[in-house]
């Protein structure tokens, strides 16, 4: 990958920053802290790349530097043969109960925005 290539994490980060800022400003925020997210291991989003893009994107914003808190979610698959669910972080695992590779992803492809906290301007 060429270095100048814009990874999709950049556009995801800048859209997200704009959305949070808009929400916060409508509520009269002066500062945004504690932004919680959940990112699945099979979302196709690199947490490291996203964090980096985010840290660049919030310069000159009201988002505090250490605001972003990401919880990484390990993917879970459901076995199509025995119906049991199991952790399948990279989507490479067989069902630990019966050995089958026939499975469906239950969770792990999400990139979920949970909440943020804000401080209001003093009136």
């Amino acid at each position: 990958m060429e270095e100048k290539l814009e990874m999709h994490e950049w556009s995801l980060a800048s859209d997200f920053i704009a959305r949070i800022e808009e929400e916060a400003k409508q509520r009269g925020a002066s500062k945004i802290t504690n932004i919680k997210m959940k990112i699945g291991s099979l979302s196709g989003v690199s947490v490291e790349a996203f964090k980096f893009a985010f840290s660049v994107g919030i310069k000159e914003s009201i988002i505090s530097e250490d605001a972003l808190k990401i919880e990484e979610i390990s993917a879970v698959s459901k076995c199509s043969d025995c119906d049991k669910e199991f952790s399948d972080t990279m989507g490479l695992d067989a069902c630990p109960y019966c050995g089958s590779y026939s499975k469906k992803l239950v969770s792990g492809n999400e990139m979920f925005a949970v909440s943020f906290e804000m401080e209001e301007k003093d009136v």
Partner: protein
Amino acid sequence: MCESCGCGQPEAGKNMSVHEHEHEHIHNHDKKVDLGFDLLEENRKLAAKNRELFRKKKIVTVNILGSPGAGKTSLLSKTLDELKDNFRIGIITGDLTGDEDMKRLARKKVVVHQIQTGRVCHLDAHMIAHALEHFSLDELDILFIENVGNLVCPAAFDLGETKRVVVLSIAEGADKPSKYPEIFSGADAVLLSKIDFAPYTDFDFSRAETDIHRIRFTVELMRVSSRTGDGIKSWCDWLARLTK
């Protein structure tokens, strides 16, 4: 202005659900705002719209993914030779810059529309919705989308395609499926390409094919060479069956 997809603007829309509540403790001015939306959801919604449109217009749409140089354009070019007498075919090509692929394919006398993504590493459903404005959808049977050459990013973006196909050339190495599982996990078919190179590589077909099956049990596996034409017939038969 964006009319075809109703999003009202060039960037993803802003219909997230938000509700807020006061924190009962610590600091009077501290307020928590619940967000509760998926950043990839906007793309999924637009993809669902595209998919519905393809279904209504009876168009089989094939999203083709793979590394730069995996052989996507060469494969399409061969495929056109095979199918264009029997099917009405359209092509969308995604490239960072340049129009090389578009020119190569336009020589085959089919409608080709190019999306230049600039510095963006993937196509998304929104770009496809707009690209569709350049086609007469009532006069199409198969629409191929050649995604940006990249084995990582396009995996996260559903375009609304009927089938997703990954092209992996054997020059890239048999370890690629296990190293880049995301792209294979959504694939309906994987084509191992450039098999005419087999005598000159140590490509371990059984390792690659086993790994691909582990990632995606239901996947269709094919081996092709756009140089010699090997495997092109079965690939085209597979495509033709999709239109039934």
